[in-house]
């Protein structure tokens, strides 16, 4: 009786092992391969900068992906292939000029901030590829690099004659239906910022719902109906006393909280109106995905960058 039971277990184990082995073989055979297309326009930077980027970013964000043997074993190979595909879509150091010239600098700041926040390289990637980790000293090199390129661009400040008020006859509407409005000028200012990285300065307004959410520390998530408006000017060069004052008007950015409507962007609707003609930003409705990718960095404050904050115990 005992021997019969034992045999039955053995048979079952063999069947399970067979199924597992077959699945494993099938997965291996169908495992995705990652091709390395030609490098069309490589990113150029100082050697110490590119060395860090090559070691820490290029496996996913370039056409020079260097797979280790364990990256090619299914089921991991599926995850690796998906990550590389997504990473190359976000930006690709081998096709750097596919990013418009004017946006390349902003992308570099974004990269540095993603590393600074510990979001990149992906923790699950560095767990298996420890050499890809960016050390604090290396992060310092990257920060210095972006700071210097921006200083070079914005040191002179906005020297253009400041153009005064035009009147836009009709309030423009963003592709996602968010309409420009003037009423934010009567709202409370929740913060003001200076951005050395792109030579701008801002005033950030919140409507009553947004201000109340800040007062009650109820921003994760923010309540529906909260609206934040950010007015952006180009910065002038510092005056004799060191004051950096606003030059020409640049844009207005609006964030509208509606968790049901804007499900693809964490419940926030984004809109930006450029220049005094308030031209809505974005060619397709998917422009907000790019906004959200960056705003992921502000997850701790409900995806809003510019609110006044303090560190408190958990």
């Amino acid at each position, binding site marked *: 009786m005992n021997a019969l039971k034992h045999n039955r277990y053995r048979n079952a184990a063999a069947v399970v092992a067979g199924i597992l082995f077959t699945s494993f073989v099938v997965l291996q055979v169908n495992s995705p391969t990652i091709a390395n297309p030609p490098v069309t326009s490589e990113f150029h930077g100082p050697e110490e900068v590119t060395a860090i980027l090559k070691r820490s970013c290029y496996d996913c964000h370039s056409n020079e992906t260097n797979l280790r043997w364990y990256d090619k074993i299914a089921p991991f190979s599926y995850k690796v292939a998906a990550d590389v595909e997504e990473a190359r879509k976000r930006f690709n150091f081998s096709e750097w000029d596919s990013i418009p010239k004017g946006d390349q600098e902003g992308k570099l700041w974004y990269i540095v901030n993603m590393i600074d*926040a510990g979001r990149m390289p992906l923790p699950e990637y560095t767990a298996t590829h420890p050499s890809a980790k960016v050390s604090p000293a290396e992060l310092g090199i990257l920060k210095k690099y972006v700071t210097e390129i921006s200083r070079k661009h914005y040191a002179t400040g906005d020297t253009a004659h400041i153009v005064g008020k035009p009147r836009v006859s009709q309030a423009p509407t963003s592709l996602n239906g968010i309409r420009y409005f003037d009423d934010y000028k009567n709202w409370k200012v929740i913060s003001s*910022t200076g*951005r050395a*990285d792109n030579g701008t300065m801002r005033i950030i307004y919140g409507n009553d719902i947004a201000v109340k959410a800040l007062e009650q520390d109820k921003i994760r998530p923010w309540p529906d109906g909260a609206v934040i408006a950010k007015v952006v000017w180009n910065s002038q060069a510092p005056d004799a006393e060191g004051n950096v004052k606003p030059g*020409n008007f640049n844009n207005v950015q609006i964030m509208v909280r509606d968790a049901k409507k804007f499900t693809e962007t964490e419940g926030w609707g984004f809109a930006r109106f450029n220049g*005094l003609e308030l031209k809505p930003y974005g060619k397709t409705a998917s422009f907000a995905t790019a906004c959200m990718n960056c705003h992921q960095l502000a997850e701790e404050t409900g995806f809003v960058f*510019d609110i006044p*904050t303090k560190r408190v115990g958990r």
Partner: protein
Amino acid sequence: MKTNILTLFLTVLTFAGCSEPRRLAPAPETIFNDHDLQVVTSFHNDRTRTISVLYGNDDAVANAGKERAGHVAGEVYKLVTWNLKGNPLWFGGNINGSLVSEETVTVVPGRDGSPQAGYTLELRGGNNRENAAGQKAERISFIFAQQASVFP
């Protein structure tokens, strides 16, 4: 030996306390209650590590916007200054920290009928910056000299 163990224990405890992740919470106490004044302009200063917003009533906005030549009685200006700090969420950006001061300039009719400017300074958060009487005139001219930001 006992002392050593105690020291080690306390050190470990201290470091454990420091390294405990701390949450980024809103600081609504830094939001200025503008009492329906509008933003005239803003500026920041890396040397003094401060950031300021100049508010004004309709008369003040009209003057700073150069819509009106001289000052008129009734103009109210408030220059609010905060400490400047790095934005914890974005390397490369600076944001206002705690409130430092609130300077108010009000234009009232003088004895001879011509408008006269009065000045008050309120310091916040244990700030003890001196404001000598002689500086008043200087601060009034500074505030009057600010040009309104261009809004759409």
